[in-house]
């Protein structure tokens, strides 16, 4: 089998789950977890085996071409881990439908990361909207959230569609991801760049296109947010590296100032807003804005170390934001709220839950020894070496602020006197613990041995090759 099989597996799983009886939560979760674990287990074997079949020959050549690049390989692994954990942890009403949608989301993101053709990339980019939209209308609490998510991301999707079509018309083929010999020339190229950049900035998201994000993250059930924030937000960053940086480096360099500015703004804006939020999930949401801004800065710094750090931090951020959202999802399930003003002193009766949240929180604030730190330090050194000193200063400020808001969140939820008006619930069950443990383990593993990702990402992928991304003059 090959990469296509990997993409189709979760979709097949979703269909199988929909065929189960509606109320059979256990069977749905078991089957869902099984499919997600199978996907994870098969990823090393199948992801790199390419599959290609002609799709279009006119107006430009396009193919259903799947296969991991070194960069996407890590994101696929991240996705497989996060999805398996999230599905295993899922404990929501109407679990069958929810888990099926989770698998659809996993399948469409697998397709996105494994796609070697821009048109296929765009197809899965748009397909990815549907499961999140359906979960938001089915399980979200507020009416507006689903709309905001859909309209923002669909607009981004259309911009991507436009850019893809124009790319295909100009280049004659969209079967290009991972190829290094594509050079676009023509008066449309700035528009193509703008289309890609808009789509990626919205999806990541980066200030000022982020307004769909906090609502979505705080509204959707924890397991879904864990995957959306952990992995889907990487789709935009992956696009920046695999598409914009690879095919339009001149334009990326030309607009690097603007993107660095937006990234820096995101770092500060996200951090400051996170400081004053009352909802724990919103704090993590805004912290994501801040962290993802840092990655955007790292990508457009045009510095090999910064780029390698960006890839590492993408994986690290995926792991710790998934862990945080899962843990906060458990908190919300127990107490019925994620508001800091209501939560207090959970740590005393829930030491395991407190520990799980603690590992995620420490990784988020960049504690050495955990994956977040390794990525951050690589990015900081790289960005500093590229000459963007003031941005390095802003990034440092963002990291300092991260300690403030993350610790505030953790303290308010876990420490302090036990609040009498909160229901007393049992600590993490073995299932919940098992769901979050792989994420914590991976955070520690990558924290002490970041080289696995750092070297793989810089050694093999052409645009990421060390020194290959000299800023064009």
């Amino acid at each position, binding site marked *: 089998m090959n990469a296509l099989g990997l993409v189709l597996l979760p979709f097949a799983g979703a269909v199988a789950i929909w065929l189960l009886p509606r109320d059979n939560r256990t069977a749905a979760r078991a089957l869902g977890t099984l499919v997600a674990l199978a996907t994870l287990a098969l990823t090393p074997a199948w992801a790199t085996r390419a599959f290609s079949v002609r799709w279009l020959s006119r107006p430009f050549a396009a193919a259903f071409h799947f296969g991991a690049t070194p960069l996407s390989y890590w994101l696929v692994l991240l996705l497989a881990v996060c999805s398996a954990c999230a599905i295993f942890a899922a404990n929501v009403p109407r679990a069958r439908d929810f888990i099926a949608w989770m698998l659809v989301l996993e399948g469409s993101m697998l397709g996105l990361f494994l796609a070697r053709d821009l048109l296929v990339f765009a197809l*899965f980019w*748009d397909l990815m*909207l549907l499961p999140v939209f359906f979960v938001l209308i089915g399980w979200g609490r507020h009416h507006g959230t689903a709309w905001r998510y859909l309209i923002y991301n*669909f607009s981004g999707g259309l911009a991507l569609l436009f850019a893809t079509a124009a790319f295909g018309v100009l280049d004659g083929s969209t079967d290009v991801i991972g190829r290094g010999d594509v050079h676009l020339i023509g008066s449309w190229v700035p528009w193509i760049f703008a289309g890609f950049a808009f789509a990626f900035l919205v999806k990541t998201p980066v200030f000022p296109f982020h307004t769909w994000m906090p609502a979505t993250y705080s509204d959707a059930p924890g397991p879904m947010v864990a995957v959306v924030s952990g992995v889907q937000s990487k789709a935009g960053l992956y696009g920046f590296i695999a598409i914009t940086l690879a095919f339009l480096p001149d334009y990326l360099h030309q607009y690097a100032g603007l993107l660095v500015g937006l990234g820096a703004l995101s770092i500060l804006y996200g951090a400051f807003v996170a400081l004053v939020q009352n909802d724990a999930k919103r704090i993590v949401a805004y912290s994501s804005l801040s962290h993802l801004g840092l990655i955007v800065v790292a990508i457009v710094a045009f510095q090999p170390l910064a780029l390698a750090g960006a890839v590492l931090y993408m994986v690290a951020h995926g792991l710790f934001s998934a862990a945080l959202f899962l843990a906060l999802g458990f908190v919300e399930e127990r107490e019925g709220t994620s508001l800091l003003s209501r939560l207090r002193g959970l740590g005393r009766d829930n030491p395991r839950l407190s520990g799980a949240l603690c590992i995620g929180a420490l990784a988020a604030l960049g504690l050495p020894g955990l994956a977040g730190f390794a990525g951050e330090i690589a990015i900081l050194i790289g960005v500093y070496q590229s000459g963007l000193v003031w941005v390095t200063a802003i990034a440092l400020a963002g990291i300092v602020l991260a300690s403030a808001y993350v610790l505030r969140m953790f303290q308010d939820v876990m420490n302090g006197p036990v609040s009498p008006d909160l229901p007393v619930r049992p600590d993490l069950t073995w299932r919940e613990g098992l769901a979050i443990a792989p994420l914590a383990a991976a955070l520690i593993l990558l924290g002490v041995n970041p080289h696995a990702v750092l070297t793989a990402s810089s050694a093999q992928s052409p645009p990421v090759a060390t020194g290959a991304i000299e800023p064009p003059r």
Partner: protein
Amino acid sequence: MTIAVTAADWMAVMPIVVLASAGLLVLLADVFARSHSPRYLSIAIGALGVLGTAYLCAKGYGENFAAFSDGFVLGGFTVAFEEIVLLATLGSLILYGTIGKDDRIAGAVALMLWSACGAMLMAGASSLMTIFLGLELLSLALYCLCGLADRATSREAALKYLILSSTASALLLYGMALLFGATGSVQLADFTSAALASSPLFWLGTGMFFVGIAFKLSLVPFHLWAPDVYEGAPLPVTAYMSVATKAATVAVFARFAYAALPAGISGRLLLPMWILAAVSMIAGNVGMLAQTDLKRLLAFSGIAQIGYVVAALAGATSLGLRYALYYLVAYAFMNLGAFAVAAALSDDGEQGSRLASYRGLARRRPFAAAAMTVFLVALAGLPPTAGFLGKILILSSSALAGYAWLGGILLVGTAISIYAYAKVVRLMYEPGETSAARAGTVAPLAWASVAVCLVFVVAMAFYPFTPSNVLPLVK
């Protein structure tokens, strides 16, 4: 001048003759089989007639023959549009399986078949006379079909359609008269002379001709009739009008735009039509936002969708025509599928069209809700459906033809439309109160139609087939 009609001429229109005879047969059979479920008998004869006609039609694909003194041209172009019309006819008349009173089905099916004859005539028409003949045959049958339901809105729709459509026909006819005055001929082939560029009569005639066309296509600002008529007409008729009428009119317009204009000025002559398409793509999608009735929603949706099709023709490239055809077929399956779901859910043709009755459908009828979702998602242009690929193809071909701005407007229109389509999806899937449960009707024909449409809507995205031999000919 003597007009010689040869056997070959008759062979060229044989599919149309067969279809018209099938209509007569439906009526005859109805007379003799009064007591034994005439509904299914009529539908069966009609469907068989359509299938037979489609088979006969397909044989003309490789032909290049002008019949009846160059009034009707047989070729790939004609056949492609004829097949789309037949597809729409089959998909629509099947819906009579659940809708309408038993004793009226035979008449309705026969009228629909004859209307399709007119549409097929339009697909091959290469003279002004044939165009008008086909158009009137199409429209006259439709006036009756619109009024066949026992509702005030149905009669209102029929009258509205009659009056407004006649006005448009009058404009079209006047335009034709002016064209005849300018050229001294009714043959489209005679309109390509460069000398016509300076003839004000020709410009005026073309303009009025296009107004008539735009009305039939319900392009903004000539669209106001469409929502009312779609809402009032019986569901199968609405389904038919939304696809067959439009396909036939697109055929007339495409032949005119591709083959019957003086080369030097065709760009300027056609520009107003591209602008109308652009306006329709925006206004149609904006119009959808406030609708509470599925048929009205799909009427506005159709206005925008046909805008996409016309936009594909901009620049008159062969690639553009192929993608317009691709999108028309995709649109036919999406629309017919959506109407089939509505028909399968309705008791008398009306329940299934109020959007409020879709609330909570996902829990009552999960498959119906899922199918409707796929069709709406396809209309919105999301993957994995033909709507997604169709938009990419139109986008690329309009860019290649030098009309990138139309592609841009297509995207803006699509961005607007997502809210309207997703609103229906949300109604079906949101938790909470469901609307009063209705007795589920058994509608095997409609469900079969839904299944076929589903398969094609998805499969067309992965196997994009566009016929290559479709450039319109005039002789």
